[in-house]
């Protein structure tokens, strides 16, 4: 049996959907402003 056959598959997070909801529910401002905040935060997280 291939090892992968025994691995438990974990559902990947749909990050695009997560961020869409984040923009709608958490952030304030215009769509353009929200997009800029999200992108800036993504870069910050990628660097940390």
């Amino acid at each position, binding site marked *: 049996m291939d090892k992968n056959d025994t691995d438990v598959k974990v*559902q990947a*997070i749909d*990050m*695009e959907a997560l*961020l869409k909801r*984040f923009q709608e529910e958490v952030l304030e401002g215009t769509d353009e402003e929200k997009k800029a905040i999200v992108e800036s*935060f*993504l870069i910050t997280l990628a660097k940390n």
Partner: protein
Amino acid sequence: MDGMLRYEERIRRISKALNRDKPDRVPVVLKLYGWLVQYYGYSMEDFYVNKPQIAVEIYGKAIEEFGFDGVFNANNVTPIAATRELGGGLYQVGEDGIQVSNLSAHIMKADEYALIRDDFIGFLRDVILPRRFSKLSGGNAETAFQAFKAAYEKYKWYMGSVVQDHAEIEKAGCPIMWGKGVLIHPIDFIMDYLRDFSGVLVDMRRQPEAVLEAAHAMQRYFIEKVYPKFQPFADGHGVFWPMHLAPYLKPKDFERFYWPFLKETLEYCINRKIYAGLFMEGSWEPYYDLLQDLPDNNYLIGSLEKGDYKKFKEKLGKKFTLCGGVPVSVLGYKTKEECAAHTRQLIDDCAQGGGFIVDTDMAVLTLNDAKPENIKTVIQTVMEYGQY
């Protein structure tokens, strides 16, 4: 003299050095970082994570006791409080400050450069963040959302405190010079956060075009979306640029992979009157000739870790304000007399004509790195011997 008057006196001294005017004396702007945290008995965990506001106490005490003219930056903009909410992250805090965690920076695969080229932000969102943070790596979507939201709240709280704290520190008389934002070299971004040192060097050899295409896509994003947020800052304040890979490259690789992005970004800053404090890791001596292609300007501050300072000043004094000259090893291991002699020689070599600021050659991270009496001796020597 109250804090604001001392601030103005110090900022005037630094600004004159940047503008190649002669200040009353050579300024001293230091990178004491974690050394100050330990010297005043605070915990690194509190400074970097739980209580960012203690920076006000630390720098307030330091400017009183040591009387330097300012700090290069305050080194407290790493949002560990936020990344912990997501599980993981590149950095952790130990007794001796921030260190790279066991999680390697090597989280991008060699065949993924085209993903950066095609959609840099989408690549970070869909590929890198789920690999870096356990709470985004899979499982329950609601848990991931709540973690992301909590991380953002912590980030807002932490950075909000840092901005407020820096204003308080300056009111107390301590200019925080070059930390208003961070410039990023795309090749350093790949090395520091995606492929690690060995990965990027192998990639540059095996798939140079793929690396360059990705780097160009990142550079375009930084120039069009990130750097326009940086406006000219008052009083010589500006942004920070830690540069890492350059001294480890062969000259022909430097010219191909590093120099074009470096030059474009520096010219961007010069043209927009944005001061940029560059931490030039390692020795840049092989590139002194190439750096002469930059236009004469007053906006670049070169904090040089190694290399010939006198030669740098002679060759590049119209391109960079030279900042540095005091090795941390001198502060840690030499006598006070040797520190004074080193400082006098440094001033003789580099102070003529302005455009020079005394600083440590690299960040002083822990209390063991430097003796307090040696730091005081260097500052005192500059005050006495560094008069114009």
